[in-house]
């Protein structure tokens, strides 16, 4: 009798651990069935929409609750620089972008807890209204713990292993229908505090 109880109990306990554990792992690792990659940025075709699959819904609930559907707003996120190295709040990065076929855009830095980094700098983002573009539409900005001489700056102080989101509000169909081809900004690491590079 005891043997049978142990048999059933072990099925339930190990089955529950496997089922819930694998689900949490997929949510934590950002599994999305409709995931779209674009030069280190990623998004989903189905964020916010009624067509979202359970995995996308779960990921959105964790990192993008109350996100709009892509006809209204396209959101891309990234956690690494052009070389594929994870972002580090102690490093300096150069952001280079060009014109985007959207009504308004912004780039915001989030700490690992998915909230704005606590640093007192009040510089968590840049947006289309604050960035002065060159005649050809190109622009650049800096992500770093200190502003230095940067004209456009996002503070990464206390950002730790931070991530970025770019929001494209009222995108033209060239963006919302061709997510993998959007000319999104590049982000190149220039130096790290104490690393001497």
């Amino acid at each position, binding site marked *: 009798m005891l043997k049978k109880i142990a048999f059933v109990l072990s099925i339930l306990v190990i089955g529950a651990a496997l089922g819930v554990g*694998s689900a949490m792992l997929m949510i934590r690792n950002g599994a999305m069935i409709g995931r779209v990659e674009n030069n280190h940025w990623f998004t989903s075709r189905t964020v916010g929409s009624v067509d979202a699959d359970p995995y996308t819904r*779960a990921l959105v*609930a964790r990192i*993008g609750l109350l996100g709009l559907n892509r006809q*209204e707003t396209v959101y891309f996120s990234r956690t690494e620089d052009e070389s594929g190295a994870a972002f580090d709040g102690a490093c300096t990065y150069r952001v280079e972008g060009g014109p985007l076929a959207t009504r308004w855009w*912004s780039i915001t830095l989030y700490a690992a807890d998915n909230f704005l*980094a606590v640093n007192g700098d009040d510089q968590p983002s840049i947006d289309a209204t604050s960035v002065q573009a060159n005649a050809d539409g190109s622009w650049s900005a800096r992500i770093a713990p200190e502003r230095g001489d940067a004209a456009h700056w996002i503070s990464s102080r206390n950002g730790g292993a931070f991530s970025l989101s770019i929001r494209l509000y009222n995108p033209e169909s060239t963006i919302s229908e061709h997510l993998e081809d959007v000319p999104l900004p590049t982000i190149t690491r220039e130096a790290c505090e104490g690393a001497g590079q």
Partner: protein
Amino acid sequence: MKKPWIIWIVATLLVATVLHVVFMFVYPQLLMTAAMNRLSDNGQRENAWTHAPRMTETARLIVRPSPDLAYSSCVYDLTDGPVRISVQPWGDYMSLSLFAANTDNYYTLNDRRMPPSGAVVILRKAGQALTDEQTAAAFEVVDSPSTRGIALIRRLAPSLEQFAQADATRGREVCEALSAE
């Protein structure tokens, strides 16, 4: 049992698969319910707008907030009937978006589609009755897939001055049960 280990493996995988699927469906609803509770002061403030202060590093209500937008939220509950939402016009990007209890963004009205004087949207569960007068006064009548959900207004306000203007504008907006009229 001739090969109990085969039964054990199959049964364990079956339990794991079922719980994996159930967890994936339940997880967004749990987080959305938690968000609705946070935004409504644990249900004390439903069918009423809450105008969030400017999003700064101290904001902890919703993950990944935009510091460039002025947010207003209304946790709606259609248990006692339809809810009326009014939105004021804004000189730049703005939108009213509706989210079901499973996180789906099932409706959005932005300033490009909105009448210049603003709009009234009536939110109801399918089948809930409205008078002709109520329907005529609405820009749109929207059926909510869930009894509870969140209405959210975003206004583009990247500067302190624009945020102050947004704050003055949004104070005139309404989110209320029609039965309260």
